């Protein structure tokens, strides 16, 4: 992989501002559906923020706090795998540049 001089995705996201909704995650994965559809690798690959990861137990890890709210995963995930909404008002990523 090409080495980005500005660090890994996680390091770059550390510079972004977030107001994380700790009470209500805005992304939920139906693990059974995800396993059945083999959605883990797809989600891990297409999300620019690295929100999804393949866990050793075969499940899909979800770091919803890192989400940039683009909607790519929602558009591309097989039906039934994700329940995805925008975070509640005022929560989530806060772009300062855009």
């Amino acid at each position, binding site marked *: *992989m*090409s*080495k*980005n*001089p*500005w*660090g890994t*995705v996680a390091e*770059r*996201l550390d*510079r*972004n501002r977030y*107001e994380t909704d700790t009470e209500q995650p805005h992304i939920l994965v139906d693990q059974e559906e995800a396993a059945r559809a083999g959605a883990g690798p*797809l989600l*891990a*690959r*297409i*999300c*620019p*923020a*690295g929100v999804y990861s393949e866990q050793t137990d075969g499940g899909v890890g979800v770091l919803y706090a890192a989400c*940039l*709210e*683009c*909607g*790519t995963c*929602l*558009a*591309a995930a097989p039906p039934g795998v994700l329940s995805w*909404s*925008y*975070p*509640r*008002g*005022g929560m*989530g*990523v*806060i*772009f*300062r*540049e*855009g």
Partner: protein
Amino acid sequence: MDTTVTAEVDFDVIVAGAGIAGSVTAYRLALHGHSVLLVERGPSPGSKNLSGGVFYCRVMEEAMPGFLLSAPIERRITRNCLSFLSESSFVNLDYADDRLAQSVTAVSVLRAKLDEWLAAQCEEAGVVLMPGVRVDALVTEDGRVTGIRAGGDELRAHVVVAADGVNSLLCRQAGVRGPEPLKHLAVGVKSVIGLPRRVIEERFNLTGDSGAAYAIVGDCTKDLGGGGFLYTNRESLSVGVVLRLDDLARSGESSAELHDRFLTHPVMEAFLRDGELLEYGCHLVAEGGLAMAHDLTRPGLVVVGDAAGLTLNTGFTVRGMDLAAGSALAAAGVVDAALKRGDYSQEALDAYPRELDKIFVGKDMRTFRRAPLFLENPRMYGDYGRLLSDIMYGVYNLDTTPRRHLAAGAGDALKNSPLALLPTIRDALAGVRAL
């Protein structure tokens, strides 16, 4: 059917989403004297929004006179480059023109700043701005949209404007628009890289507030549908890739890695060197063209901007912000007339798509209706860039072997590429017709 609504309303109009489309609609309707509520889920308008950043802003002189003088624009784009990138080469069609500085048709912008300013103009014009509030759903009664639901409360209006962007969950939940096919969507992954003003002006050959915009195809997407962009701001660069979702899903590639691969390409590295990362972000782009611009009205509802699928990618330019503003102008005119007559029926609001067809929004969507199909052609993203670079190599690599005419050299390059002549000619003709 009773088309005049007499029920109590909280506002004449409620606009969901304070992006360009929402703010311009709200602003125009407030100027017409209507009571307008503008609801935005971000803590401040613009905090959720991201674009590549070149705003073809002529329409704003009509939408908000004085825009160029007071809006927070970054640079006036006077140099446009269309570039083909291969692993080893960078072929540019570089168009610089002082006339562009005089006429100012394009400026670079950063949305967090621009959208905040637009919403401030709305407030000055009398719009009630409600930031930090997510609209949870449209409220419908007897097939008519009568208001919004947010945080357990319901607010009623004669007309609701869905300006909630490319995902438009509001239209989707209400069954107004279904999910789009993947080929109608692309994801933009972008970094904003801070650099001193002087360095930017030197690297891009600029003076004062003039700016450059590079649209890049070829190696930047590893042959996936899409491209790269590099735009100059006052003291930063907007740089990133746009990846068509159907190709991305199929390919086995990672969006973040493609972004990194582009930024670390030696050609890009030379532009970005020693810069400081200010922000890493992503956002979807509507790429379906005319095929995506459907279902723009329901009784009591109009859909504007990206929510209505109004974006055009011609390969040379990505245009969505100007179409957002244009659709807002058209919608505001029609909603104003509807409010004056007290008629919010489907028939009354269908004047809006007709209005769009009369102005540049509908006309350009129609003119470029073949662009999405043309840009689906995989040869656009790999082989043609390599072909072009081989032709240019033949022209400039004066290695003491005798030179041949350009046409003969091009013929050789074509022979050595996996491209066949006929499809190449067909693509060229299709391109001329589509773009």
